[in-house]
């Protein structure tokens, strides 16, 4: 074996307890970084998956919609959207990247439930979707988060008047009972409790409903029905009735309390009436998130080329929460990295300083034998580096073992912004970049920490070192 390595290794073993203490600090740093990093990356995967399942990667809107259109979706419809979709679909660059392309229509209005004894109405935020496309989008799970299990067959392309509500929306509309929902208490009896059709708004809605559909909403059988009232693009009031097949709880309360999911044609009918049926957005879900920049660039080129009044938004823009969580956890991770780096730095500086002190006479002796300053420096640098390397390797193995144990423990958790628990996983093994990055970083810190004592050792005068016993 190489003499230098032999001396270094044997010295590490000779000061076994000290080396173990220092190595443990490095290992603890590595363990903490990897576990937290693995957890963080899993959170990111989970958030990304949830977002991409719901919003796709990219959405094409009418120019200005993103900033000004939310209040008046009708005014920002994409005309001839089928042509735009065809253009995208036929593009040789985009086509292989796209998993699902689907149109959506946003709609704002008032929802009312006037069945039986209930007389409730409230504003709603509706989205018209293509149920089969939605199912395919919900199947997107490249990180194997298993956030969605099984298909949701409650909506179908062929049943245009069937939709879902946010849990809060269902509660406010008094549908807890009819939908047999858990964790959904009925409204308490209040003095303001009304009999059907007594409030001014509700009377208007009822009138409209009677006039437009020619049937009384209370006549619905089985699944409850609600009325959705909105203004069409040209300002005329419009109403449709929706059969509520169930709820889909949203992770954000404001959304949950207002959410209505309906079939695209129903939403279009509500917004555009007998006019041209446009859509608010064309959602693109890519097979791989890393294709996003390329797909976006290509889309932008297509839009420019055909002079379309369209704009593109990524899921991060649609849901700033995603970016906030990523930044928060990245910040915590950075902070942890700094703290761990400091701990390792001090531990190694301390140990190597002691080692240099203890071996001062030996340094003098070997310098007298003809070892150059650089040789001494290298010896102590290598010692720090090796303690770091071994400690970080042990920490990595521990982190992998612990992460596997956690992953097999069957724990679940509810990610921020989610409504339903998903399996809790710490993804260490699947992140070779994280493992090698943490390892290299810690080895680098340990080596840097050894630099100071090593330089001091190298600069010692031979005579002074020899005098030191």
């Amino acid at each position, binding site marked *: 074996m190489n003499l230098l390595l032999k001396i270094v290794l044997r010295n590490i073993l000779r000061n076994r307890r000290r080396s173990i203490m220092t190595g443990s600090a490095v290992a603890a740093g590595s363990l903490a970084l990897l576990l937290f990093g693995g957890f963080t990356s899993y959170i990111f995967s989970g958030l990304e998956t949830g977002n991409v399942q719901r919003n796709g990667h990219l959405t094409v809107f009418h120019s200005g919609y993103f900033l000004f259109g939310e209040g008046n979706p009708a005014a920002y419809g994409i005309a001839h959207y089928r042509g735009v979709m065809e253009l995208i679909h036929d593009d040789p660059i985009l086509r292989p990247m796209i998993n699902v392309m689907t149109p959506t229509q946003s709609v704002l209005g008032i929802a009312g439930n006037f069945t039986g004894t209930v007389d409730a109405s409230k504003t709603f935020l509706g989205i018209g979707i293509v149920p089969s496309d939605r199912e395919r989008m919900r199947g997107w799970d490249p990180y194997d988060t298993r956030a969605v299990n099984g298909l949701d067959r409650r909506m179908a392309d062929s049943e245009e008047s069937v939709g879902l509500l946010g849990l809060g929306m269902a509660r406010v509309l008094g549908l807890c009972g009819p939908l047999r929902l858990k964790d959904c208490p009925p409204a308490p009896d209040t003095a303001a409790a009304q009999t059907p059709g007594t409030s001014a708004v509700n009377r208007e809605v009822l009138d409209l409903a009677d006039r437009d559909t020619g049937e009384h909403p209370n006549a619905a059988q089985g699944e409850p029905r609600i009325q959705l009232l909105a203004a069409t693009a040209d300002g005329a009031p419009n109403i449709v009735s929706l059969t509520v097949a169930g709820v889909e709880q949203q992770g954000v309360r404001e959304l949950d309390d207002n959410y209505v999911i309906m079939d695209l044609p129903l939403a279009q009918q509500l917004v555009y009436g007998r006019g041209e049926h446009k859509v608010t957005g064309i959602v693109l879900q890519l097979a791989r998130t890393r294709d996003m920049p390329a797909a976006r660039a290509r889309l932008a080129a297509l839009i420019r080329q055909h002079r379309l009044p369209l704009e593109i938004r990524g899921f991060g823009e649609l849901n700033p929460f995603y970016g906030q969580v990523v930044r928060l956890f990245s910040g915590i991770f950075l902070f942890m990295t700094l703290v761990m780096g400091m701990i390792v730095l001090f531990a190694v500086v301390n140990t190597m300083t002691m080692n240099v002190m203890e071996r001062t006479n030996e340094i003098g002796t070997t310098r007298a*034998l003809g070892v150059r300053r650089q040789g001494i420096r290298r010896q102590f640098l290598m010692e720090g580096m090796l303690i770091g390397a071994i400690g970080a390797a042990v920490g990595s193995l521990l982190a992998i073992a612990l992460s596997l144990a956690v992953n097999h423990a069957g724990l679940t958790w509810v990610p921020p912004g989610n409504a339903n628990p998903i399996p809790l996983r710490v993804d260490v093994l699947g992140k070779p970049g994280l493992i090698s990055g943490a390892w290299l970083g810690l080895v680098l810190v340990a080596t840097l920490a050894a630099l100071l004592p090593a330089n001091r050792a190298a600069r010692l005068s031979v005579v002074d070192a020899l005098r030191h016993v």
Partner: protein
Amino acid sequence: MVPRVSSSSVVRLSRVLKTYRVGSTDVKALDDITLAIPANRFSIVIGASGSGKTTLLNLIGCIDTATDGAVEVCEEDVTRLSDDRLADFRSRHIGFIFQNFSLVPVLTAYENVEYPLILLGMTVASRRQHAMAMLEAVGLAEHAHRFPNELSGGQKQRVAIARALVKRPTLVLADEPTANLDSVTGASIIALMRRVQAELNTTFIFASHDAQLISHADDIFAIRDGALLEHRMETEQ
């Protein structure tokens, strides 16, 4: 006394001054030393403790630099060499034997002896051959794979002697090599050094405060308070 500078001198010091700064005053460890140490002989530097023996040997061994004066070792003006060149110079020309043995604790006897040969870039095979031969010469072949803490003081010093001599240096410096040994062991170490010096025909410089050891030396340099008192040749060349 007029110093005799022989043509076969390995070491020549001329008007060497060495001062140490202690606080605000300069302590003169060596004061105007001029001497020449003859080649291939066993010279002793004798003087009381604190007289400057170690300082003198350090200058000769190129691990310390003179405050003033000229130091020439193996016909090289070592005062002009850089630190790295000095290290290489020591590696090639000088062997050290220390009072406290100073073996590398994590290396076996054999590895300690092999160390200087590695610094010289020797091949594994010739390293093995030279190191084993040297260990045999000091009578420690069977302890080759023991670590220093498994050896007695006398054995350690034998390993140190083997380490100093294995590279066949021009010059071997031994600073009170018997001071930490009992008198019997010390005597055997002196005898061993004498023997290998004669066998290998090396120049030995040996510092001691023990006047009894004078009888072993070919040349005697007596110093007191950093000044050379006399240079006496015991046996004629």
